[in-house]
């Protein structure tokens, strides 16, 4: 203990700057991992809580499995007959709008697609409802017992916005036109009042069935179980599901949130991987710092050995230093991580289109993982130098200064590097990790790959230096050539710094390459998906023949209706997966926009006529990859008329509903899904200049009557791309963090080099080297490190992004064409060079300030 106080802690205190610099790598890594952990939890909690709040004391929910068209309310009887079920509360969901509100609503965009806005009304059982959910009535009263009364309770904030008071009779849109209902009360925007972001109201069930022309129908039954029931909730759910059959699904209220959070998971894996990389680069820094300490303190260790300290004691003292450093870095990382989580949570709210709790709790698991990662990585990185410190001989104390030995790693490390590189590359290409959802094994292989490259660097430094010396001399002048040569000295230090830069640059490229490829595909799809010029949507269902009327408007070239129908597809194991059935009239659709076929040899007119003939589907490339479906295969969908088989006519690029989408024709929608309403209408205009004018014309003719909202496709695209860029920017930030950590390595290494070469720099100054030349000499050394790191990073960044892309296709079904944006390559190189120069400046200035007199007497 005393030893620790005298040796380890004092040694750390003696080198505050280096300690801080090397600690920072760990801090950033830990902060990243923790921030992502916290934000994940917050997103999950917020979503789950939203569903819990809005579903109150409901234990289970019964919905139709196949579509959103509802089922008979008579099901209630058979539900309450199931032992354990105390109450079955019906809900009829209606999307509508107030007749008084302005027609245009902003189209909501998020990871989950579009949200047309508008008022959501639930038809409920006025008597049973208060037992399931707590409505806080702030004004007036709750619904009366009269199940047919045309009365409504609205959320207070929404009513205030719309200038509605208790007692008012408001007009709402129904299939019969505007109908009046009386506002009898207002509820607070909490609990069930949070539904649809507070644009919500409840009215009696039978009144709702009558108003929205759905007699005898409901969309959902909420079940409250008998608290004294002997069987657990899981078994009741099973019994219900078995009894109701496959046409219904019995779920837990919070289960809805799970699907939402799952969609974020790929995004989160990416974030986690990148913070792991930051920590990995941090490990390089720690190793470097400790290796430097060993060289620097050789005399001290020799002396300690001479006066009787054992090897083990010395190694232990070094490890204690590492432990202190790791702990301090990790704790700092935790503080930084909590801050970072706030930003990340805000980011996730944008992506989810739903607020994520800003009050964050730190999940103990995330805290434990990030702390132990920080400490573990530090100890691991310090292990080898600590052992080397123990091997210092007592005779070393007598020598003037520590002679850095050419260790095994410098001489033979490249062999191990080649093996590591070959094995890891092979593993990544072969990709046996398809079943590893968190990409843990994959990350390890990537780390092994980077370690491999780093081990090879010392073997090629000589050659690099010789080739690039003329370039360095041209850029930095005469002293630049000297600086360039200096890179061959202190080789292990240089190697790790170059390695750290390399990893940072490679990560920038991987991020740019992957997001670039993904964005390119997404763009192509968005362009076609948002084909035409105007996107028409409504907060109420659109009539299918409206498209025909709109196409007759002056200036309109064509208009096409699109319907998004929720359904399920049967998988090979007999289970069903929820997907979207997108219905179009192939002829009208082709006039407005086009399909993007994933195989560009597809005969588009043949495919379209197959689709038009009926009983055929275009499936998304995601589904095709995921389930190995091909053109000509039969795919079974659940429809109103039972499970029906369709033939795959083509594979198209379509990312609607995360790619879980098939396209069919409108007649099949009518025939099999018993629906004839459009979700959106795409319009193309004759003259691109007249988009605004045509939009006004359509609005004048039909806007008020059909509650149309219109957006020019250009503006929607801009917003979609903006959302996309925001999502991707997080990756860029994390990749940049790795580079930042690497730049700290440059500062560290050069500072050490400058200290080590003090006497030499003094001699050069005495011999007539100006301060400027000294600065250029150090900058040249850093510039060369940046160049080697940048170019190698470029090679491995491109290689890795290609490998990742292939791996992603196997795992998720996204097949992407590799696109490496030129900006990515350029920015990676520029970042490596600029960062290395910026980082070199402080040590370079320190070198230039060397006091010649002191330096030439410096031992």
């Amino acid at each position, binding site marked *: 203990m005393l030893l620790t106080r005298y040796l380890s802690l004092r040694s750390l205190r003696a080198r505050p700057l280096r300690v801080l610099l090397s600690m920072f790598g760990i801090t950033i890594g830990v902060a990243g991992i923790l921030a992502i952990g916290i934000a994940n939890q917050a997103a999950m909690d917020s979503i789950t809580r939203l569903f819990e709040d809005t579903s109150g004391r409901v234990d289970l929910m019964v919905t139709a499995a196949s579509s959103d068209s509802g089922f008979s309310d008579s099901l209630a009887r058979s539900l309450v007959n199931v032992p354990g079920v105390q109450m079955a509360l019906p809900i009829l969901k209606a999307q509508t709008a107030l007749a008084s509100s302005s027609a245009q609503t902003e189209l909501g965009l998020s990871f989950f697609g579009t949200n047309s806005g508008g008022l959501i009304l639930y038809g409920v059982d006025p008597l049973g409802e208060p037992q399931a959910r707590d409505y806080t009535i702030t004004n007036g009263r709750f619904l009366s017992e009269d199940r047919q009364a045309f009365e409504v309770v609205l959320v207070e904030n929404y009513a205030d916005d719309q200038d509605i008071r208790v007692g008012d009779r408001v007009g709402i849109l129904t299939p019969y036109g505007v109908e009046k209902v009386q506002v009898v009360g207002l509820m607070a925007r909490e609990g069930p009042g949070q539904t649809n972001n507070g644009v919500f109201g409840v009215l009696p069930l039978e009144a709702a069935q009558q108003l929205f022309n759905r007699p005898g129908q409901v969309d959902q039954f909420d079940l409250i179980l008998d608290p004294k029931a002997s069987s657990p909730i899981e078994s009741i759910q099973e019994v219900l599901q078995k009894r109701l059959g496959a046409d219904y699904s019995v779920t837990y209220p919070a289960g809805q949130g799970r699907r939402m959070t799952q969609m974020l998971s790929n995004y989160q894996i990416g974030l986690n991987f990148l913070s792991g990389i930051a920590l990995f680069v941090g490990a390089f820094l720690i190793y470097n710092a400790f290796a430097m300490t060993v060289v620097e303190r050789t005399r001290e260790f020799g002396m300690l050995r001479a006066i009787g300290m054992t090897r083990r004691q010395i190694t232990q003292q070094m490890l204690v230093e590492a432990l202190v450093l790791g702990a301090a870095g990790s704790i700092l990382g935790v503080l930084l991580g909590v801050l970072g989580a706030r930003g990340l949570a805000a980011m996730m709210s944008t992506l989810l289109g739903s607020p994520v709790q800003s009050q964050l709790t730190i999940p103990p698991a995330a805290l434990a993982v990030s702390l132990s990662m920080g400490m573990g990585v530090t100890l691991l990185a310090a292990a080898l130098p600590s052992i080397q410190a123990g091997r210092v001989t007592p005779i070393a104390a007598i020598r003037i200064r520590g002679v850095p030995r050419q260790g095994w790693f410098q001489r033979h490390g490249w062999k191990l590097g080649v093996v590591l590189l070959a094995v890891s590359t092979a593993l990544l290409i072969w990709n046996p990790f398809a079943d590893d959802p968190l990409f843990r094994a994959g990350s390890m292989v990537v780390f092994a790959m980077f370690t491999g490259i780093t081990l090879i660097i010392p073997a090629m430094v000589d050659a690099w230096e010789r080739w690039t010396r003329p370039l360095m001399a041209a850029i930095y002048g005469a002293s630049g050539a*000297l600086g360039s*040569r200096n890179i061959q000295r202190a080789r292990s230090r240089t190697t790790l710094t170059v390695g750290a830069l390399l990893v940072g640059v490679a990560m920038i490229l991987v991020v740019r390459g992957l997001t670039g490829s993904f964005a390119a595909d997404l763009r192509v799809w968005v362009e076609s998906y948002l084909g035409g010029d105007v996107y028409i949507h409504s907060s109420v269902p659109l009539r299918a023949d409206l498209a025909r009327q709109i196409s007759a408007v002056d200036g309109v070239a064509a208009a096409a209706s699109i319907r998004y129908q929720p359904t399920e597809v049967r998988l090979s194991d007999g289970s069903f997966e929820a997907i979207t059935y997108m219905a179009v009239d192939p002829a009208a659709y082709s006039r407005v926009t086009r399909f993007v076929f994933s195989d560009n040899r597809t005969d588009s007119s043949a495919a379209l006529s197959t689709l038009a003939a009926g009983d055929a589907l275009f499936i998304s490339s995601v589904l095709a990859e995921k389930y190995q479906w091909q053109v000509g295969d039969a795919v079974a969908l659940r429809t109103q008329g039972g499970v029906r088989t369709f033939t795959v006519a083509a594979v198209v690029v379509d990312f609607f509903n995360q790619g879980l989408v098939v396209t069919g024709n409108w007649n099949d929608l009518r025939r099999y899904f018993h629906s004839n309403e459009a979700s959106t209408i795409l319009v193309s205009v004759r003259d691109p200049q007249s988009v605004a004018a045509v939009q006004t014309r359509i609005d004048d003719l039909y806007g008020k009557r059909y509650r149309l909202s219109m957006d020019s496709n250009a503006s929607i695209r801009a917003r979609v791309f903006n959302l996309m860029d925001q999502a991707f920017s997080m990756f860029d930030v994390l990749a940049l963090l790795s580079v930042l950590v690497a730049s700290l390595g440059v500062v560290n290494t050069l500072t050490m080099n400058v200290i080590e070469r003090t006497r030499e720099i003094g001699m050069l100054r005495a011999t007539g080297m100006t301060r400027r030349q000294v600065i250029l000499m150090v900058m040249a050394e850093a510039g060369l490190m940046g160049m080697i790191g940048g170019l190698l990073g470029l090679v491995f960044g491109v290689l890795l992004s290609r490998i990742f892309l292939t791996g992603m296709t196997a795992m998720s079904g996204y097949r992407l064409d590799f696109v490496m944006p030129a900006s990515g390559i350029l920015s990676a190189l520029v970042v490596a060079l600029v960062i290395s120069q910026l980082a070199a400046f402080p040590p370079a200035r320190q070198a230039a300030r060397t006091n010649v*007199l002191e330096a030439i007497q410096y031992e």
Partner: protein
Amino acid sequence: MSVLQASQLIKRYQLGVHEVNALNGVDFEAAAGEFVAIMGPSGSGKSTLLHLLGGLDAPTGGTVMLAGQELSGLNDQQATLARRRSIGFVFQFFNLLPTLSAEENILLPILIDGKKPAEFKERLDQLIALVGLEERRTHKPDQLSGGEQQRVALARALITQPAILLADEPTGNLDSNTGKAIMELLRRSCDDLNQAIVVVTHDARAAAFADRVVFLRDGQVERRLQLAQDEAPAQRMRAIIEIMESLEL
């Protein structure tokens, strides 16, 4: 005609709370082709004097004129250029760049000056022949002995044909035979190249190679001794040791 002339040099500096008078009004001069040795006990100010003469440090008072240029009034940039072009240094520790070969180390001042080494080929060959390193031209410092390294350092100091060559204990880190060889080389540079040389040493045998010896004590010149190079080396040495003894150096 003296190339280097210093008059009334004063150097004071702060050492902790104490003010140290390192030099107290020293006059010094050296002519082209003249070899001057500065002797004195530790703390006598001999290294300080050399540093002021070489423009490595600025005096508190007095002036240093080198080849008609006032050194003491120069800023850092000007002093650096003066060192680069008009002054050659040889240190006790050889201070060669480990990444450069012997030849490249010699050409270092040329490289720093941004000139083409090829233009100095003749001078380089001449110096390499002078220091006797024809066989060692491409060797790196770690392949050279201490004496060889110091010869490289000497050639490096001479490559720019400096107005003055300053050497601080050039034999301090060498065995006596190697040290003697280095002093002989300095002597030959002085004679053959008409080079002005100032050497700081506390070794009487090394000082015996000089034309003149200046004895310093407590920052002041105590004695000046003119030596005739045609006298026997032992006799010259005896003259130096006698003065050292009389001054209790």
